[in-house]
Structures are given as C-alpha cells and as structure tokens.
C-alpha cells in the first residue's frame, strides 16, 4: 500500500513537474531559437499567460467537478457562445436603455442565468431519463449551437461598452481582471469540493455510485447542481472574455470542450470519476497555455501546438497506465 501512496504522490506532482520542465525547456531553447529579445520567463509574459488561461481554465475547472462526479459535458463550448451573445446583445435592448452603466451587471446576470439554465437542462435530462451524460451533452452541443446560430445567423454579435472594457483590461495588484476571476473560481471550487457536503458527496458518487446510493445520497440533485455549476462557469468564462473583446462569432467556443477535457486529464482527474483535484486542473490549464506560448516563443506555429498537445495527452494516458500496471500483476485480458 505504500507503493500505491507513492504512485498517487507521483501523479499529483507530475503536472507541476511538467510545468517546471516546460519553463526550463522554453527558457533554454528560447535563448537559442527565439528571435524575441525578452526572456521567456519574463514577468509580464507570465502574467499575460495567466490571463489567457482564464477562459478555458474556468471551463476546465467546471469540467473537473463534472468528471469527478462521473459525468462529462461536451456542450460547454456552445453554452459559452450563447451566454456571450446574451451578454453582448442584452446591453443593447431598449428595455435597459435608461440604465446607463448599470446595464453591465444586468447583462452579466442574464448571461450567467443563461448558462445555469442550459446546464440545468442537461442535468435534468441526465437525471430523469438516465441517458448517459456523454450522449445528452453531445446532443446539447449540437442543439445549443443551433440556438446560437438561430439567434443572429452567421453574423457576429458585437457591442462595445468602454466602461466594461476598462474593467476587463484593468490590473489589480499586477494581475489582470480575468486572472482574478480564474483564481476566484479555483478558490471557490476548491472550497466546494473539499469543504462542503455537496463536494464530498460528489466525490463519493463518482467513486462508488452504488455505495453512495445505498448510503442514502441522492445522486440526481448532486449531478444536477454540478451541471448547473458548469453551465454557470461556461457563462462566466464568456463574461470574462467578451467583456474585453466585445464581439462574438457564432462559431466561438468550438472545441472548447476538448481543450477543457485535455486540461482536466493532464491534471490527473480519473476518467471514471471519484478522483481528481481542482488545483491539479489549474496546473493542467497552465501547462497547456505554457506549451502554446512556449512553442510560439521558439518559433513554432499553432499547428505544432495542436500536434504536441494531442501527443502529450496520449502520452499521459500511457504513463498513467504503466504506473497502474506495475501496482499489480494483471490478468492478460
């Protein structure tokens, strides 16, 4: 059993080791390959990295609790886009014309409520029909994206509110607004998963659903809450990102679910549920963002980023399996 503890420790530390490796690698490789004058580990560069991690990061953190709970959500990208449209569009609604800048919190709330509602629909279907979350959210991914397109056709939805842009671009204690949101979500979800009854029950359900049911834990409401949470977080991610950019294309957020799942898996969350950590997912998000930036820094394009991330994901899966196999002599089936 000592062996198992050690394996677990290795797994927990792996993502941070990988981040360290990336930092060193890109700094060293950068000094030979980069055309840029500034060092890779430049403070501004790192702060920007955190900011850019926020949109996917916030969603990935939500995906972590969904996956700990034993489910998956493929519809986050579409939810993200729809919430963004609601936020930007609602600011132009005549009803709110007299609100001045007070329209900002109103539009935020509307966007967040959209996310919660879409999540609730997924959660309710998973709960009441018993259809696997993979299929439910696969369908929702198409359906919600359809709603996005029906809203405004293939045209982008734009609205710039300069107060909002100023807020989004602000830096407080050196960190960007988006970074603060990311950190707040990390803190909030960590607290939720480690300190509250809901969080602990979510772990129990993902770990051993039958045991949880037998212990009288109501599986349905917990799953529902988690789906509403990820819907909320997808919307929050949109709020954070589009407050600054002010324009959303109907295709925005496509493949976000894949990036989020990649970050979660890199962070070591078990695919079957029951194990995973919020902080490690943050590590996964940062690792991906570092990779994007680092490869860019040494002169490789997005194509290499895609290639490398895909292969790293597979490599992680492979290493994880090797670690587990060594733990016990397995039957060859």
């Amino acid at each position, binding site marked *: *059993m000592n062996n*198992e*503890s050690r394996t677990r420790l290795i797994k927990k530390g792996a993502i941070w080791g990988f981040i360290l490796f990336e930092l060193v690698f890109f700094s060293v490789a950068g000094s030979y390959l980069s055309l840029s004058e500034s060092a890779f580990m430049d403070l501004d560069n790192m702060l920007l990295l955190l900011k850019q991690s926020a949109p996917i990061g916030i969603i990935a953190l939500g995906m972590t609790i969904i996956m700990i709970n034993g489910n998956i959500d493929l519809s986050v990208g579409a939810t993200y886009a729809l919430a963004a449209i609601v936020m930007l569009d609602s600011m132009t609604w005549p009803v709110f014309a007299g609100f001045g800048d007070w329209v900002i919190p109103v539009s935020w709330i509307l966007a967040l409520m959209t996310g919660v509602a879409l999540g609730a629909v997924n959660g309710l279907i998973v709960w009441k029909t018993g259809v696997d979350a993979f299929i439910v959210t696969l369908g929702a991914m198409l359906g919600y994206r359809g709603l996005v397109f029906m809203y405004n056709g293939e045209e982008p939805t734009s609205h710039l509110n300069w107060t909002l842009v100023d807020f989004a671009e602000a830096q407080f204690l050196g960190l960007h607004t988006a970074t603060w949101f990311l950190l707040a979500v990390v803190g909030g979800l960590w607290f939720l998963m480690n*300190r*509250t*009854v*809901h969080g*602990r*029950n979510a*772990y*129990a359900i993902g*770990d*051993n659903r*039958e*045991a*949880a*049911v*037998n*212990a*009288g*834990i109501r599986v349905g409401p917990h799953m529902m809450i988690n789906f509403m949470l990820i819907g909320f977080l997808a919307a929050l991610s949109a709020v954070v990102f589009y407050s600054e950019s002010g324009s959303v294309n109907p295709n925005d957020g496509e493949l976000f679910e894949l990036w989020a799942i990649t970050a979660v898996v890199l962070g070591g969350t078990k695919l079957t549920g*029951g*194990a995973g950590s919020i902080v490690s997912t943050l590590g996964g998000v940062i690792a991906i963002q570092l990779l994007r930036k680092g490869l860019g820094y040494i002169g490789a394009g997005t194509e290499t980023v895609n290639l490398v991330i895909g292969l790293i994901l597979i490599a992680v899966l492979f290493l994880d399996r090797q670690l587990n196999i060594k733990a016990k*002599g397995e*039957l*060859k*089936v």
Partner: protein
Amino acid sequence: MSEQVSASVPALRLEAIVKTFPGVRALDGVSFDVMPGEVHALMGENGAGKSTLMKVLGGIHQPDSGRIIVSETPVKMSSPLEAKHKGIVFIHQELSLAKELTVAENIYLGELPRKRFGLVDWQALFDKTNTILQRLKVGFDARTRVGDLSIANQQMVEIARALTHEAKAVIFDEPTASLTDAEKTVLFEVIDDLKSHGVGIIYISHRMEEIFKITDRISVLRDGQYRGTLETAETTEEDITQLMIGRKLDLTRHASDHELGEVALEVKGLSCGSLYKDISFKVRAGEVVGFYGLVGAGRTEIAETLFGLRTPTGGCIVLEGQEVEISSPVDAINLGISLVPENRKEQGLVLGMNCRDNMTLPQVSDLTAGPFVSDGAEIAIFDHYYDKLEIKTPSWKQQAGNLSGGNQQKIVIGKWLSMHPKVLIVDEPTRGIDVGSKSEIHKLIRDLASQGYAVVVISSEMPEVLQVSDRIVAMYSGRIMREFTSEEVTEDSLIQAISGLGDNSGQAA
C-alpha cells in the same frame, strides 16, 4: 454504551415476509427472529432467497407483505439509510466503499456532520470516527484513505459503519470470504463485542466450520421458503444440509469404472509470482482431478495460466509428453486446452449475444462457407449440444442473458466441448446454479471423463469435489498441500489440508 435490552424481546423479528418479482416468488412467507446478543446463521443454497431477504432487511427492496419488527416496533424501510436509522445495518459481501475518500467519510457516508451553509464539520467527523475505531481496536485512523487499507481493514470500515447508530441488528454477508486467518480472528472478536452489547447478528456463510464456531442458532431457507431453525449446539452438518437441499446429501463418490489413459497434462514446478508457487500435478486422459481450497488459494490463477491468461514465472507445462508454451488463450485452444471460467457472466458469455453465437464463438472463423459464417454449420453444432446437454431454451435465438444460471453454464460447457479439447478445465462449475442443474452438471463431468477427456475441476464446495473427482489436490495459500486419491480422502483431512494444517509429506509429484 448501549442500554441493555431485555433478553426476552427479539432484536429483530420477521413475520411472513413475501417478496415477488415478475414470474418469481423470491420470498414466500419467511419468519424467524434474532435475539439480542445472539449470532444467528442464515443458510441456504444459492438462489434460496438469502440475498433477497437481506435486501429487504437492508431497505433496498420493499416486501409485498409481512412485517419487520425491530425491538417490538414494526418498521418500514424505503432505503438503506432508513434501515440504518431503524437499527438494521447490512455489511455487504462486496465492499461498498468509496476508495478515494477517507475512512471517516466512508463511515459517515450520506450523513456527514454539517455546520452552517452545508459545510462539513470535520472536527466532529474525525472525533466521532476515532471513538468508533478505538472500540474496534484497529490500527488505522480516521483520516486514512480507504484505498490505502488492506481488504480486511476495509471490511473493518464497513463494520465501523454499523456502530455509528445504535444498531439493533447487524447482518454479515459472507464476511470471511477474502480474509486471512488472523483477520478472521479479529472479525470474530468484533462480533463477540457486538454480542456483548446486546446486538442481534445475522451471519450468512457457507463455511460450516465458522457456523459451528460462532453461531447460536441456524435458520435455513429453501426456494424462498423458511425451512426451520436449529440450535447450533444440537445439530450436525448433515441436518443442516438436509434442510437446505430437502434430502440427504448424496455423497456417493462416482468411482471410475473405466481405464485411465496416458498422462494428458503434466505441470512441473509451475510458479507465478506471489500467486502460487511450485505447483506440480498430472492429469490422465479419462481422469477427473479436483482442486479444492479456499478462495484466493491460487487455484483459479493456475487455470488462467494453463489457458494462457497469465505468464508463469517458473516451471513448465507438458501436454501429451511435449513441453509447450502457452502465451494466449488462442495458443491454449490450439493445443487442446479449454477453460470453463469461474465467472460465467463476466468471463463465460457475451450476455447480449444469442445462445448459438456464444456457443460457436471460439471456432467461428472455421465455420465458414466462402467468406461468410455458415448458418447451417453453426446450427448443427448448437443442436448437437442442445440435445446432448439438455439445454432448456425456446430457441437458439434467445439471448444468453435471458437463460437461467444452469442453462447458461451448459452453453459455456457446450462451447468448449464443441472444440473437442484434450484437457477441460472447469472452474466452479456449479456456482450460482440450482440444485437440479448441479447434479446434472456433475453427472456430465463424470460422463466426459469416461469418454476420455482429462478434466480438472476447481471448486470451493467440498461435496462437489468429493463427488466428481478421482483425485483431489488440496491447495492452501498458493501451494499444493496434499494430494488425495478418492479412496483415501476424508472430509477432516481435506479441511485440514486447505486450512494450512495438513502435513506436506503427502505431496505427490
């Protein structure tokens, strides 16, 4: 801790419990009672209704009629949690723990102590848990992750759950199945402790020696009906068996009436890591060799090695005089070795596939007409074994999952007979099968031997090995302890050998 309950009031009383499922009357008026401080064994064949009864008591199923009375109060329970609150705790055979969570969280699963805003009150949780753990005298603490504990300690966590509420009755379902002797001793101490606190205990087990060691009374179920309660001190194994199967157990051994052939399979010094060591035995054509031992003694692992599913770390396998290497089931099948696996539903059958396709699966590549599978050839094989094994199914199109256990097992046996193996290994051939089909399968195994098959039977049921085997190999903890011929074997010597008590001198090469 617990108030002393008057000894004349039963801790738990069942009155005419009836539970039906579509087409089955699983429980048909079961009544008995458990006194405080009593260990009450519940016995019955597989399928007799024990597990249904336990699920009714555990709040998983609701009875159609009848009453459950806990210390004079009739109770209705709609969930396991409610059962626990009413004072009935069920300790599962298959551990139902969340391995990633701490011991404390598992013990209070579903009812974590709360502070305001849905926060977990960790201080209270750990304090309460540690109090219970101290009472159980275990060597781990409340913050340990359950996945880091040994199986026996995980079981202790299950038991600790029983102590979170003032349990009136605790149900143990085959608790010793995966425990070592030392761990068993601890378990029995815990049961004694519960007894002394006036808890009534229902103890389900097939192991006679345990039943006689720790229980006070024994109730027997058969075909969903209550068959009577015996005082343990005044009863014998035969009385119990008779109640369980409704007749005197037929222990006549099927002596071989045919000449044995050449040695078909010889295993020399086979080892596989820590699973088993230095295993040597021979099986001749026409002979049935029984492997008897407790679960975990290494018998199934030997079979899996012979079938190419495990890589041995030492020793060799000789088939008809030729040393062979078996690195996959395909190799084994090509060499003429077949395995009817231990777990029919997980290893034996594709439950969603029809009976015929299941039966012809290993040779489907050879049953072709042109590029396609030949329907006629498949049906011919199915029909042959349908008649020979007397399989009861409306048609070959029936999904294997819809058949009864006995008929499922016959499909698996038919599957391997149709491969005409030289060596047939049968692992737990009658697990979960009703009494009628059991004796049919036993007869079938004897018939196969007389047709010249070399047969290895692995079983945890003593009557079974005694009945079908020409020789019996007794295993304990990964080693062969003794080998018996059917003339010399006695139940006592067999039990001694598989508990690690027998001498090693009888080990034959």
